[in-house]
C-alpha cells in the first residue's frame, strides 16, 4: 500500500451543443421529482405536522445544496475531475475526489463537468429529503438540517465519487474485468439507497412516534393526513423522474439520443407495473386497494427504474416494476408489524429496498455475469460500509443535536411546537386517544 496521490480520471467524450442543451433542459425539469417526494412526505404525516414537514423539505434541500457547494463537491471531485488513490494488490483504488472548495472555477469548467455538478446538486437535495419523511411527526427541524448537512458533506460526495466520478466502484471493470463497473445512471444508489439507509439509521436512533407501539396489542394505525397530496406527488414525481433518468443516462452512460425514448418508456412501465402490483396485493390483503401503499408502490417502481431504465428492455422493466410493487406493501407491513420500525413515509422500503432491487436487476439483465458481480460488489458496499457509517455518524449527531422533540411537542404537533402555528388553522384537531 502506498501514500495517496491525486490522479486525473480517464477522458470522456465531449458533449455536442445539442446534447448539452438537452441535458440542461432535462436537469431543469428534474427538480419536479424533489417536489413530488416533498408532497409525499408531507401527505403521509399528520395534519398537526404538515407545515413543519413541508418547510422541512425546503430547508433540508437548501442546507444540502449549500453544504455540498461549500464542502461536498470537493470530495465528489466532479468539477476538477481528479481524485485521491491508494495502491493495493497492484491496483489503483480511487476513493475520494479532489476538487476546489466553494465551487471555485465553476464557470471555466468543461460543459460536461458543469452538468454533472448540477445533477449532483439535485441528487443531494433529493437524498436529504428521504430520511425526513421517515422522521415525520417527531423530528426537530434543526436535527433534520444536521442530517442533511452530514449527508451532503461526507456520505453523498464519497459515494457519488465512487460511482459517478471515476471512483473505485466505477473502475471495477477496468481493474477487475467486471463489466462496465458498477452502474447507477439514475441515482438509485447515490440518492435512493443512501436516503433509504439514512432513514433506517435515523428511525432506529430516534425511535417510533409516541403511541405507535403500545405496550399491549398491535401497533396503532397512524394514516397520512392528506392522501391527495401523496397521489399528486406521485404524478409530479413521474415528470421529474423521466427527466432525471434521461439526464443520468446521457451524463453517466454517454447514451445516444436514440436511446432516450426507450429509457422514458421503461421508466413509465416500471412505475405502472409496480402500481398495479401494489393495487392487486393490497386489494387482495385488505379487501380494497390502499391508496397510500399504492403511492408507495408507484414510487418504488420509479426508484427501481433509476437503476435500470437505461439498461433493460421494456419487458424486463415491467418485471422489475412488478417485483418492486409486490414487495413494497409486504415489506412496509413487515417493518411495522414484525420489526417495530416506525417509518411513516415508507422510505426504507420504497427507496432503500427498491433501489437495491433495481441495482441488482441492472446486473441480472446485463449480458454476461461480470456486470452482475459488479452490481453485487456495489450493493455489498452500500450495505456493508455505508449503512454502518451512516448509523455511526447519525448516532454522534444525535448526541450533539437530539433528533426528537420532547413528548409535549409531539403531543401538540410539530407545527405548533416548532413554528408556532398550524398548517390548517381553521381545523379543530381532535384529541388523540394514544396520548391519554
Amino acid at each position: 500500500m502506498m501514500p495517496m496521490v491525486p490522479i486525473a480520471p480517464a477522458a470522456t467524450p465531449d458533449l455536442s451543443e445539442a446534447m448539452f442543451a438537452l441535458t440542461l433542459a432535462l436537469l431543469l425539469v428534474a427538480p419536479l421529482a424533489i417536489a413530488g417526494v416533498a408532497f409525499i412526505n408531507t401527505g403521509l404525516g399528520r395534519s398537526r405536522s404538515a407545515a413543519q414537514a413541508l418547510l422541512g423539505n425546503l430547508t433540508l434541500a437548501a442546507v444540502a445544496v449549500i453544504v455540498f457547494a461549500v464542502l461536498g463537491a470537493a470530495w465528489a471531485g466532479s468539477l476538477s475531475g481528479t481524485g485521491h488513490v491508494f495502491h493495493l494488490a497492484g491496483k489503483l483504488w480511487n476513493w475520494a475526489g479532489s476538487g476546489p472548495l466553494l465551487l471555485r472555477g465553476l464557470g471555466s469548467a468543461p460543459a460536461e463537468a458543469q452538468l454533472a455538478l448540477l445533477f449532483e446538486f439535485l441528487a443531494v437535495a433529493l437524498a436529504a429529503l428521504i430520511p425526513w419523511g421517515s422522521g415525520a411527526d417527531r423530528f426537530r427541524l434543526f436535527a433534520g438540517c444536521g442530517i442533511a448537512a452530514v449527508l451532503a458533506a461526507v456520505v453523498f460526495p464519497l459515494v457519488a465519487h465512487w460511482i459517478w466520478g471515476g471512483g473505485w466502484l466505477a473502475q471495477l471493470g477496468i481493474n477487475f474485468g467486471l463489466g462496465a463497473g458498477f452502474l447507477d445512471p439514475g441515482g438509485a444508489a447515490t440518492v435512493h439507497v443512501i436516503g433509504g439507509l439514512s432513514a433506517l439509521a435515523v428511525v432506529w436512533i430516534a425511535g417510533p412516534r409516541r403511541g405507535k407501539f403500545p405496550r399491549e396489542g398491535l401497533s396503532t394505525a397512524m394514516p397520512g393526513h392528506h392522501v391527495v397530496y401523496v397521489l399528486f406527488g406521485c404524478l409530479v414525481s413521474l415528470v421529474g423522474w423521466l427527466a432525471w433518468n434521461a439526464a443520468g443516462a446521457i451524463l453517466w452512460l454517454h447514451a445516444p439520443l436514440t436511446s432516450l425514448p426507450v429509457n422514458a418508456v421503461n421508466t413509465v412501465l416500471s412505475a405502472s407495473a409496480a402500481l398495479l402490483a401494489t393495487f392487486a396485493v393490497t386489494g387482495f390483503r385488505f379487501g380494497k386497494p390502499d391508496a397510500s401503499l399504492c403511492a408507495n408502490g408507484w414510487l418504488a417502481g420509479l426508484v427501481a427504474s433509476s437503476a435500470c431504465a437505461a439498461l433493460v428492455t421494456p419487458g424486463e422493466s415491467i418485471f422489475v416494476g412488478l417485483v418492486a410493487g409486490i414487495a413494497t406493501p409486504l415489506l412496509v407491513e413487515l417493518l411495522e408489524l414484525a420489526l417495530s420500525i416506525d417509518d411513516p413515509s415508507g422510505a426504507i422500503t420504497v427507496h432503500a429496498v427498491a433501489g437495491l432491487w433495481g441495482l441488482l436487476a441492472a446486473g441480472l439483465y446485463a449480458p454476461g455475469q461480470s456486470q452482475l458481480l459488479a452490481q453485487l460488489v456495489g450493493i455489498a458496499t452500500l450495505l456493508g460500509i455505508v449503512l454502518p457509517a451512516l448509523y455511526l455518524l447519525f448516532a454522534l449527531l444525535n448526541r450533539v443535536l437530539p433528533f426528537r422533540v420532547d413528548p409535549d411537542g409531539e403531543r401538540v404537533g410539530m407545527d405548533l411546537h416548532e413554528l408556532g402555528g398550524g398548517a390548517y388553522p381553521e381545523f379543530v384537531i381532535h384529541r388523540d386517544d394514544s396520548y391519554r
Partner: protein
Amino acid sequence: MKYAGLLVMPAGFFLAIAALVLFPSPLQRGVFVVCGLAVEGLGLGVAIRGHMLARGENRS
C-alpha cells in the same frame, strides 16, 4: 446487540473486496461476494433483532 450487528456488516464488505483481489476465477469471486452479502445480511438481522428487543423493553 444492534452495535454487534452493525460491526459484522463491514466484515461482509471486506470479504467481497478480498474476493476481487485474491481470486482471478469469476466463479470463486462470485461465491465469495455472495458470501460477503450473506454476512452483511446476518449482521443486519442481528441489528434488527437488537432493535426489536430494545423496543420491546421501551413500549409506551
